[in-house]
């Protein structure tokens, strides 16, 4: 990347606000003191298909390793009834744009079925659920637009009654404070948020038809009616995304600025290059979205890359968990430990990954202003899962190619780096 070009200089300038080490990475400098990918990954400067992404403390002021961007949404067909919303979390573990009602100043048309019932969703995350109606909006991110995009409005006050089947799954997170962001942009490898699982039986706990705010019936919902991955609605650059973040110093950073690039092999700034294609399981399979990690003589066959996870989560009994009441679940080795793993796709292509696990308490004690850590790790429930969260993304360009979409090097769903 050439720092003397004005667009590139703008990115370098933005990185000055972060760490000076980060600037060296973006401008082709050495990265010997960085964790993460370690090599110098070229980060695309602002462009029509490139949106800025930032790691910071978020609306709560407490977030770590959480990536945010801004989106502009309009009432469908309008160029004046529009709003730009910041603090939208980027997630590759989900699909769909969701905005908290309290952060939304627009009145968007809701989606109804042929009987006039509103379509409501109980979006499932590991830590809870978010309830709200499906509505449509015109979305603009960077220079990409999606017209009449179905999105979810979380915590809409009209639909404040959450069905028991929904609240029985977990904590209801319908406010900016409980959700942790003004919204979430899910741009993972799948075209819809739920997929086949929501087409086979009504008791999926996800979609509902509501004849009134208090009368909701669980339903199946055809794929074409489910909340879509917004990037699949772009006219072009709609086959995948690339998350591009610079490396981070081993002691952490107060903020990190990078890019989300839309499209793979569709423009001059989104080439696959030499990235290794790691194919993941398809929708409706037991390893949907997942590949295998080989680590410590063990095989973790339900592994995944997820920008929406804020640590590297895997089960390793040799790593002690941090003390505390209650324990955080992060790892606290005496000193930073360095590891090597291999990730293997369903296509049997493989790539080596070096990573570090630092003492999480030491990292957090390094300063309350630090929000980004490339060596933060913690436990995971299953021996067969390795969650490569945001730490993996620092210093790497990570590709998410959507199911059924093609690039110069393969057909999704796949990851590459």
């Amino acid at each position, binding site marked *: 990347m050439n720092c003397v070009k004005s667009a590139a200089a703008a990115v370098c300038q933005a990185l000055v606000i972060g760490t000076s080490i980060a600037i060296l990475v973006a401008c082709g400098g050495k990265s010997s003191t960085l964790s993460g990918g370690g090599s110098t990954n070229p980060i695309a400067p602002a462009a029509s298909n490139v949106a800025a992404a930032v790691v910071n403390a978020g609306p709560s002021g407490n977030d770590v390793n959480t990536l945010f961007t801004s989106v502009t949404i309009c009432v469908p067909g309008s160029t004046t009834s529009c709003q730009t919303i910041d603090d939208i979390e980027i997630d590759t573990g989900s699909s769909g744009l969701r905005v908290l009602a309290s952060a939304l100043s627009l009145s968007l048309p809701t989606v109804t079925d042929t009987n006039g019932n509103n379509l409501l969703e109980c979006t499932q995350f590991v830590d809870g659920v978010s309830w709200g109606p499906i509505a449509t909006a015109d979305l603009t991110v960077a220079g990409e637009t999606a017209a009449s995009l179905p999105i979810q409005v979380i915590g809409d006050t009209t639909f404040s009654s959450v069905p028991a089947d929904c609240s*029985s799954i*977990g904590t209801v997170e319908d406010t900016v404070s409980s959700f942790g962001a003004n919204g979430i942009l899910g741009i993972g490898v799948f075209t819809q*948020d739920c997929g086949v699982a929501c087409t086979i039986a009504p008791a999926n706990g996800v979609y509902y038809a509501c004849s009134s705010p208090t009368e909701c019936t669980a339903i199946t919902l055809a794929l074409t009616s489910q909340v879509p991955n917004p990037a699949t609605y772009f006219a072009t650059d709609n086959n995948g995304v690339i998350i591009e973040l610079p490396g981070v110093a081993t002691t952490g950073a107060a903020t990190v600025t990078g890019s989300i690039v839309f499209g793979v092999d569709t423009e001059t700034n989104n080439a696959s290059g030499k990235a290794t294609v790691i194919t993941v399981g398809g929708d409706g399979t037991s390893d949907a979205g997942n590949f295998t990690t080989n680590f410590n003589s063990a095989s973790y066959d339900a592994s995944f890359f997820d920008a929406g996870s*804020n*640590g590297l989560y895997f089960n390793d009994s040799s790593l002690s968990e941090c003390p505390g009441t209650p324990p955080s679940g992060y790892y606290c080795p005496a000193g930073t430990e360095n590891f090597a793993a291999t990730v293997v796709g369903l296509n049997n292509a493989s790539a080596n990954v070096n990573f570090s696990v630092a003492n999480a308490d030491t990292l957090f004690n390094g300063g309350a202003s630090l929000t980004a850590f490339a060596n933060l790790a913690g436990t*995971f*429930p299953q021996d067969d899962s390795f969650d490569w969260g945001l730490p993996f993304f620092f210093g790497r360009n990570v590709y998410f190619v959507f199911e059924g979409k093609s690039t110069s090097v393969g057909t999704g769903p796949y990851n590459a780096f």
Partner: protein
Amino acid sequence: MRNGTVGTLFGIFVGGLATLAGACVAPRAAHAALGAPYASIATDQTTLKASIKVTPRSSYEVHELTLASGTSVREYVTNGGAVFAVAWNGPTMPNLRQTLGDYFANYTAAASAAHGGHNHLAVRQDGLVIQAGGHMRAFTGRAYLPQAIPAGVSIDELR
């Protein structure tokens, strides 16, 4: 209060009784899963609309319920008839209020405290471990009562 409840349940497991005397919740219809008696699994099956398969192992049985969405919920039952662990995986999350029983409140409390974002959750308290992760289409998790695990059974079997 939660420690007190676990202590009471552990006494029940050791004694082989199948009542929830002393549980700090109001009595209600047989309610399943973690910490509850074996008979409650039938309630789980009805409530969760699941098919069920039983696999005997060394000192316990695994009762596997398969939900309509394809998600599997496994309940680990001692030979004395108490559920000491549950595990789940599948495309959608299970009804955790039903599956975790009295411990659902611990799960939601952890989500309300500072935690690891939307795609990860961990609870580790005296007498209770809950770990959950994954993503839509491939959620995974487990919860167990460490003091209630039968002798010789490894945590690695509980998944």
